[in-house]
């Protein structure tokens, strides 16, 4: 819209040239600015309602304000305390007073909940202390509090308070990789009953890997067949891939539930045909999850592969054969290398999508088949532990982000066709 005016008389020498250059540069700048202004509304939208919220979600993994909000002075005192032996009378006096205030103001539960992440049972202990705090009328507070509940004389509980003092914490991030920080600051393995997160991570990668392997094993030959068939067949086969691609994910999941259940079609067929004597368990276990996930993700592998394969002339393989290459050698040295960009892009796409799966394992899997997404949703909705939800979200995001550059690199060459 800002075509350089007067470019035809650019042959004039001297100052005119320079002013023309300046004009051109100005015009270019204006073009850039105009282009940016067109992008700006969407950019602002995405930053405000997507990037911003995601970043603040991730912030929850280090944010730890609860105890310091409810019991600011106790938090301050235990923060300064070295944790080597039980704190003094001042700490006890402050704690009693702040539990008393917080219990009246009904804010004590939030702090108690936070303390419970450190030692389970701490919540009910704080709540019980709150109910009975009226009985403590004067010093010495240390004896009085330990009299209410002898665990107040246990060093471990005071160290738990110290660990919760905030305002920032690494406990969620460490817990997400099955580690914990000890009271003296050293990092070690978390207690066995809490080391479940690495298992989830491994399982998520394991399921994604096998889904990908199945997709390649079935999808590569399929894409090859579509790309090398005659025009009409190729069209027809492509539609067979595109129809599931366009069909609602929940509809496809529903279809698999109908097919796989114990009284479902597959089992009826197997029983009727006498292939098995009693119904196979195909649903609410890993088998079902694999089947449904491969079904959902297979088009994402076939379509990019097909996009690459249809541009490889069939004559190349014939040429290789006529030059004496055996079929396997011809495939490995002529055909396969040319399909690698499409294969790589498809693989990463399938893998990234598989890592984030939630609905399919939730509906078709059992308790032992849930992935990281499920864990995030559980922490956020059922237990309200946002710190953990956020830390595991970081774990999942890092897994995806590590693959993303590879994907961008592979995709730059070719373009996809999703329809």
């Amino acid at each position, binding site marked *: 819209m800002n075509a350089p005016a007067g470019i035809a008389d650019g042959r004039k020498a001297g100052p005119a040239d320079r002013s023309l250059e300046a004009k051109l540069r100005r015009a270019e700048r204006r073009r850039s600015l105009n282009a940016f202004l067109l992008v700006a509304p969407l950019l602002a939208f995405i930053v405000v309602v997507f990037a911003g919220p995601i970043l603040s979600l991730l912030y929850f993994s280090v944010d730890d304000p609860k105890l310091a909000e409810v019991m600011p002075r106790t938090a301050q005192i235990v923060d300064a305390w070295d944790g080597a032996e039980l704190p003094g009378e001042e700490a006890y006096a402050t704690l009693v007073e702040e539990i008393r205030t917080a219990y009246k103001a009904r804010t004590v539960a939030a702090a108690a909940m936070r303390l419970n992440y450190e030692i389970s049972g701490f919540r009910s202990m704080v709540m019980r202390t709150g109910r009975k705090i009226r009985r403590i009328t004067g010093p010495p507070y240390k004896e009085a509090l330990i009299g209410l509940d002898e665990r107040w004389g246990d060093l471990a509980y005071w160290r738990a308070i110290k660990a919760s003092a905030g305002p920032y914490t690494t406990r969620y991030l460490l817990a997400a990789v099955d580690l914990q920080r000890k009271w003296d600051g050293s990092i070690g393995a978390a207690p066995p009953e809490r080391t479940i997160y690495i298992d989830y991570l491994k399982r998520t990668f394991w399921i994604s890997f096998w889904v990908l392997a199945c997709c390649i094993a*079935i999808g590569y030959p399929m894409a090859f067949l579509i790309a090398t068939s005659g025009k009409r067949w190729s069209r027809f086969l492509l*539609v067979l891939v595109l129809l599931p691609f366009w069909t*609602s994910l929940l509809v496809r999941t529903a279809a698999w539930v109908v097919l796989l259940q114990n009284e479902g079609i597959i089992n009826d067929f197997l029983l009727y045909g006498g292939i098995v004597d009693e119904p196979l368990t195909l649903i609410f276990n890993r088998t079902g999850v694999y089947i449904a996930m491969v079904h959902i993700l297979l088009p994402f592998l076939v379509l990019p592969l097909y996009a690459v394969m249809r541009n490889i002339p*069939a004559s190349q393989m014939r040429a290789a054969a006529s030059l004496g290459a055996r079929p396997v050698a011809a495939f490995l040295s002529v055909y396969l290398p040319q399909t690698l960009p499409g294969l790589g892009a498809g693989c990463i796409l399938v893998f990234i999508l598989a890592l*984030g799966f939630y609905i399919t394992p939730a509906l078709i899997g059992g308790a032992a088949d849930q992935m990281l997404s499920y864990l995030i949703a559980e922490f956020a909705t059922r237990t309200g532990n946002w710190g953990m939800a956020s830390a595991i979200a970081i774990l999942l995001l890092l897994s995806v982000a590590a693959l993303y550059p590879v994907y961008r690199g592979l995709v730059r060459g070719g373009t996809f066709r999703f329809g």
Partner: protein
Amino acid sequence: MAVPVNATRGQHVWYWCLRLICATGFIFLIGPIVIIVPISFSSGSFLSYPLPGFSMRWYDAVVEPFPWMFALENSLIVATTVTVVATALGTLAAYGLTRADFPGKPLVFGLLISPLAVPLVITALGLYFFFARIGLVQTHIGLIIAHVVLAVPFVVITVSATLKGFDWNLVRAAESLGAPPLAAFFQVTLPLILPGVLAGAVFAFVTSLDEVIVALFLSGPAQLTLPRQLFTGLRDQLDPSIVAIATLLIAFSIALLVVVEVLQWRSARQRSARAD
């Protein structure tokens, strides 16, 4: 591809092996979708064969006002609004992204399509916290905004791809003939890239219509959408009315597939016409 006349026995075996794997793959892909359709017309309430008889009773359940028609209405309201907003914002941005270079353009593009790469549960949770703070949880507006975020990358990608084959000289010609930029866009550019824009719009519509995770987190009973009702039905009690609604959605997907095929065919034809 056929077996050459001079093929060895090994090549024959290999040829049929390939066919067998592919047949399995295609049946695997299309089978489940085909096989559940007849069940929706069953007169019994078992989700299996043989069907006891033909009836439309499950479709009668589907057209009851609650829950399916209510959910459908919500889904259509949300998806339509999402389509309009996402298509407008996305087309504008794609136009800007292809029109000229500006500093940080690859980064901006990456940011705009990043909702595709972030796992949906994370997006849903982030939006939930954000909307909880500004009072948009359990509102139609909140759900619409969230779905625009998820749908807009498809519009940006599709329209950008179409604009790659666009001849900018046409815009220059229009402007040299005195057309203001806006008129040039609506009278010259838009009609030419319309297939790409419409394909992007279809993608946006489907994204919203099929989205369940964000809906689970953000919507209340008043924003019940079709996928959410399907999710609840699949989790709690599975009855053939789910299969009936699934059949209707499959019919809808076939219609969409045809629409997108036609649009992409037209846009490809336009691109190849340009290349000549």
